[in-house]
Structure formats: structure tokens, C-alpha cells
């Protein structure tokens, strides 16, 4: 039995808090059945970077949050059980400084009760600054995926999250899919800088057209590889653009920071196919 691609709407890594904070904004359905990607977890706790971590720019945000997280152990002990009880489909995002760290994270998560799937973060906008394994070439990403896949049951989805870089996305998607990724998350914050030159990642509506180009390019080159669009999704129109370009699902990040009800609304709208006579909600 091979793993199913989650979706059609997911919470993007790092934009759903610990998960709990979304509950008040999740509508009647609550968190049950929500495909949530956790913030990226590392083996050891990380305090995250200094402030200001987030700056507003036209159409988006630049962030250098620095992957603050309590470390895998604390997550497994406290956050995961709560999420599982709430019915969340938990996709744990993992990040490491070495291939071995990725493998260890995957191994421990493979036996943790209630982990729906994994997402490997192999396209952070400032890997060097964040002390992460640097993915310079597509095969670097693929070897991480392969190492993780070995540790994680084949019947559960493993997502590989790549940078929306059109000149490498096809090679990266092909290599990661061959290495065992169930689907490719096409999109992450785009490498950018704060006004003072400090490195960060650009997210939000400003980057939607960039990730969309990558999704369409992968669809054309690799029609059999499932993709998940991520970048600037904030309403039904922007979500549908990805689905129409061939993505199987979308992830919503920055839009949740702007309006925490975004995912609840998109789940409601996208679970039914569009019909000619019911106008869709747009923002």
C-alpha cells in the first residue's frame, strides 16, 4: 500500500503555531481531519533567532524566525499527544544539520503514535544562517529524502519541501520522488533580505506567482510526480490556480498570520468542486 497525498488544504510549516492556537479559528469542524505541518523540529530545542524576526514588505513578509522549537523529545511528550487527541493529521516537518540527524528524527517519529506523515525541510531560505544541512544541488535533497524514507514506513506520506527555484525544481522533484517522496511541496519562503541586508525568506501573496511557475513547470516535465503548491495561497482563487496548474494540494502559511480563519474557510470551499452557480469566496 503506497502512501496517499494529503490535502487538498494543509497548514504550512511554521505558520500554525503549536497547532492549538488554530483551534479557536477552526470553525464547526474544529481541528479534526486538519492536515497540519508542524513547525520544523530539530533534535535539540532551539530558541530561534533574535528580533525583529518578521518584517512586513509589499505583498508579503520577510522572516528569519530561526526555527524556534522545543526539540523532538519535548514535542513528542507534550504537543503531539494534544494534536492527536484533537484529531489533527500531524505531518511533522523535520530539519537537521546532517543527514544523520534527519535519519534519527525520522526513525524516532516512525514509532511515535499518531504521526500521519513527515515533511523534510530541504529548501530553507537561509540554510547556512539556520545551521541546516545545505542543499546546493538537487541530489543533496534527494539523499536526505532517501535517508528519511529508509526510517519511515512506506505507507505513510513523506513530503519533500523544495525551494521555488524554476531552474532546479524539475531536477529536484524528480530526484526526491525517485528517492521515495510521496509528493513534492513546491515552495518555501524565497531567499530574501531584510531592509538592512540581513538574510531572511519572503512569503505571502508576493511569491504566489513564483511558486506557481514551478508547479506548472513540474507538471509539464513530470506529470506523474504529485506536487503540493505552497506560497501566497490566501483565498479560493489563489488555491485553485495551483490546483489548476497540476498541484494535488496547497499549503497555507502567511495567510494564516493575516487571517487565522483562512484554512478553515478554504477547507470548506475546496472540499466541494466549484459549481457554475455558487459564487466562490475570494478575498
Amino acid at each position, binding site marked *: 500500500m503506497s502512501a496517499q497525498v494529503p490535502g487538498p488544504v494543509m497548514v504550512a510549516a511554521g505558520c500554525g503555531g503549536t497547532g*492549538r492556537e488554530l483551534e479557536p479559528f477552526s470553525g464547526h469542524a474544529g481541528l479534526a481531519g486538519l492536515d497540519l505541518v508542524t513547525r520544523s523540529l530539530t533534535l535539540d530545542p532551539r530558541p530561534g*533567532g533574535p528580533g525583529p524576526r518578521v518584517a512586513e514588505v509589499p505583498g508579503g513578509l520577510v522572516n528569519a524566525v530561526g526555527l524556534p522549537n522545543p526539540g523532538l523529545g519535548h514535542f513528542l511528550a507534550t504537543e503531539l499527544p494534544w494534536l492527536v487527541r484533537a484529531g489533527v493529521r500531524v505531518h511533522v516537518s523535520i530539519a537537521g544539520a546532517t543527514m544523520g540527524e534527519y535519519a534519527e528524527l525520522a526513525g524516532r517519529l516512525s514509532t511515535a503514535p499518531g504521526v500521519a506523515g513527515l515533511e523534510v525541510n530541504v529548501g530553507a531560505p537561509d540554510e547556512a544562517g539556520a545551521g541546516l544541512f545545505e542543499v546546493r544541488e538537487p541530489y543533496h535533497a534527494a539523499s536526505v529524502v532517501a535517508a528519511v524514507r529508509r526510517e519511515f514506513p512506506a505507507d505513510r506520506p513523506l513530503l519533500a519541501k523544495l525551494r521555488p527555484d524554476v531552474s532546479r525544481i524539475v531536477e529536484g522533484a524528480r530526484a526526491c520522488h525517485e528517492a521515495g517522496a510521496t509528493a513534492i511541496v513546491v515552495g518555501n519562503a524565497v531567499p530574501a533580505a531584510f531592509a538592512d541586508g540581513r538574510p531572511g525568506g519572503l512569503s505571502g501573496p508576493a511569491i504566489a506567482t513564483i511558486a506557481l511557475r514551478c508547479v506548472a513547470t513540474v507538471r509539464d516535465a513530470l506529470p506523474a510526480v504529485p506536487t503540493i503548491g505552497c506560497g501566497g495561497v490566501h483565498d479560493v482563487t489563489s488555491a485553485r490556480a495551483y490546483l489548476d496548474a497540476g498541484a494535488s494540494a496547497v499549503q497555507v502559511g502567511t495567510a494564516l*498570520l493575516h487571517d*487565522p480563519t483562512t484554512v478553515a474557510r478554504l477547507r470548506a470551499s475546496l472540499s466541494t468542486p466549484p459549481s457554475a452557480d455558487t459564487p466562490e469566496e475570494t478575498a
Partner: protein
Amino acid sequence: MPDGPVHVQGEVVATKRVGGYRHLTLTAPGVPERFRAGNFVALTADGHVARRAFWVHRVRASSAFGPTLDVVMETRGSGTAWLAAQPVGAKVAITGPLGRPFALPKDAVSCLLVGEGYAAAPLFPLAERLRERGCSVSLAVSAPDEAHLLSALEARRSARAVTVLTADGSVGVRGTVADHVGDLVGRSDADVVYAAGPHHVLHAVAAAAESAGAWSQVAVESPTPCGTGLCHGCPLPVVGEDGVDRVVRACTEGPVVRGDRVRWASL
């Protein structure tokens, strides 16, 4: 009333310029009902992705428009410029109430409340709550000048003593919170000191409280891109109960925290 914040479409029902500030009264179904002193709301400014945070200055359980809340706004950049310009009838997306409110003492103790500029706003509903509990309340409002001083007139009902400080001496006592807070703590014989304002004011208050052996509860104002705990973009360096340094989210584990827990030097 269920717990937790809501995200709703609010409406401006009154807007008034008072000195250097704009007072907005908004409907926000569900927010006033859930409010506790020290909470803030996040407002959406047109064309801006990040949210803008404002202390709730007062709530009215009922008005001609139903329950409403007031915020006191200082125009800083384009977001507050847009918000402050919204006329009666304008729709504004509101999330709230957000953040941990001021912790209230169990007993009828003596409390000093210190607020700088618009940040004095959350102290007024706090004063009422404390008064209801039989606490003795002293209030100090401070500002660079008269135009930026929140009127303490209505607070006189809840507060035993009200001190007004302005840096330029245009009204009340000349000087800053840092200059006078030691005195104020002593004079009020405070068991708990509550404060809201910029970091340096809070730091001064926390230090004065500590040296007088009083508790302090400070409402920290750090940039809060989302306000809802989702982005981890509002780091607040603290010392945990276990003595270990941590970084928590100002919007969720704060904005009100114990003054002696904040690592001021790391802010």
C-alpha cells in the same frame, strides 16, 4: 461564553480625536464579551499582511450598536494611518481578545498601576476590576507631553490616588516614570505593580517593584506580526520558573508577564 479569541468583521461606530491620539469605538461580535484587562486586539490595515496590535481601552457591554470596544491609537506608519482614518461605518477585521491578561490578586491588596502614553489604556479597565475586588488602587499616567497623556478623569472613580507625569512638565509632575517610580511604589505601599508602556518604562517599573519587594505584572509591547501565536515572530526572552532562560511568544505567553521574569538586557 466559550474561551479563546475570535476573528470577526468589526465596524467603526465612533471615531474621535483626543489630543495626540485617535479613539476608535468598534463593534466586534464576541470580543467585548470575552475581554479581560490586558488583552489586546489585532486589526487588519488595508494592503498590509501583518496585523496591527492595540490594547483594549474599554468595553461596553451594550450600546446602541451592541457590545463595543475602544482602542486608543497613535499614528506611527501607514498601517495606523489607515486605521486612524477609517470613518464611522468602515469595516475592519478584528481578532481578539488576544494575549494573557493581567493576573488579578486573590486578596484585597494595594496596587500601583503605571502607564506610559497610549499604553496606559489597558490600566483603566484593570483599575475597575481591582477596585471591584476591594484593592486599593493608585494610578500613574505618564507621557512626553499633555497631548499624549490619557485623561485620568474617569479613573478617579476607581483609583484612590492618581499621579500625572509629563516629561516636559506641561501638566502634572515633570519627569519620567524612571524618575518617579521608586517614590510611587513606596508612597502607594504597593503589593503589586502593574505597568504598560515601552520596554524601558517596564524595566524601570520591574526594578523598582523588585527592590520594594512587590510583585510586578508588565504588559510588554513587542512587534507582533500575527498576534495569535502562529508565527513565533514575537520573541520575548524570559527566565522560566525553573531558572532556565527561554524565549516565549510575546503575544501568547505574554503580553503580560511577571516583570522579574523578563531578560530586559536581551530585548
